[in-house]
């Protein structure tokens, strides 16, 4: 699975009543920005490596969090990460992210399920952690 064939197939697809708006992110790496209908505020970024298809959504930056509540946030994030379907929480640079990694041999519907789940989870997470935002 590569980003080009994904762009083509996702643009036409409907999964669980959701549609996908796919846009390549300019730059050297093949990265797609995928907006899922019904969760357009939390675009999913997707990249394909040798070992995995990595999908991630930015939640917030560290500077957006009340400093005093960081430990509490981290504790909650660790706890919520396990039961959250098809998603895990992480941090890249200053960005807190929710992400999912799939095998490069995943089917299109696996990928679509991941995208829909991630975008929806991102919204739930933002609402959940709203009170620790500065």
């Amino acid at each position, binding site marked *: 699975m590569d980003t080009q064939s994904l762009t083509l197939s996702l643009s036409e697809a409907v999964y669980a009543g959701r549609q996908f708006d796919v846009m390549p*992110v300019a730059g050297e*790496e093949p990265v797609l920005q995928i907006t899922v209908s019904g969760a357009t*505020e939390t675009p999913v970024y997707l990249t394909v490596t040798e070992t995995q298809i990595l999908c991630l959504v930015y939640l917030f930056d560290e500077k957006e969090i009340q400093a005093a509540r960081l430990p509490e946030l981290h504790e909650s994030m660790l706890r919520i990460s396990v039961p959250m379907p098809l998603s895990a929480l992480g941090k890249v640079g200053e960005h807190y992210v929710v992400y999912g990694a799939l095998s490069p041999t995943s089917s299109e519907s696996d990928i679509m399920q991941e995208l829909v789940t991630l975008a929806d989870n991102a919204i739930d997470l933002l609402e959940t952690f709203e009170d620790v935002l500065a």
Partner: protein
Amino acid sequence: MRSVMKKIMTAMRGGVNELGEAVVDNQSTRIFEQEIRDADNELRNARRELAGLMAEAASLARQIGNAEAEISRRENDAQKALAAGQEDLAREVAERIVETERQHVDLSHARQRLQVRIEQLKARVQQAEKQLAEYKRELQVVKTNERVLRTTAQIDTSMNSNRSSLSGAKETLERIRERQQREEDRQNAHVQLDKELSGADLDEKLKAAGIDGSKQAVDDVLARLKGAGSGSN
């Protein structure tokens, strides 16, 4: 290159997580990849050597078996010669037995030495396989880490150049609420439209004004029944 994961963690805690400050630079990644390829080749050679040694050991085992068979056959011959009083012939056979026994000892020693080499090589191959798998996994961690950093840097650049998508979590939440409100409004409008089309809203208004269509109907039926009853009298 050992324990790459620890190196990455240390670097990240130290805040080294920017592009251009790669934890493990490209040059060493390439060297590491080359080392893995070399180790892969060595491992293949070692496996081939091992296969050769094992074939040799099998051949020695066969030769030892043959020597043993030869010895017992000749011992039998010698006994027969002795029984027949052929002392000289028996001596000749005994000489052959001594010769074969010496061969047997030589073969057995060779086989023992070979067995030791085989065991050593097997252990080395196993160790190398384990090490190589570990290197490959570590290389994957390095490469994925760099890939994620490059990817997010690219996303950040793209977001920064596209003002509309540059927003904090609070603005995002606001936009989520606006959308949810829009969806709710649309849902309500649908319900309203359905009511209007079915006339349900008119019924509601009439009811509110004290004009209940169904109550009226009951009254009408009662009046009709009463009228019919008086007519039969």
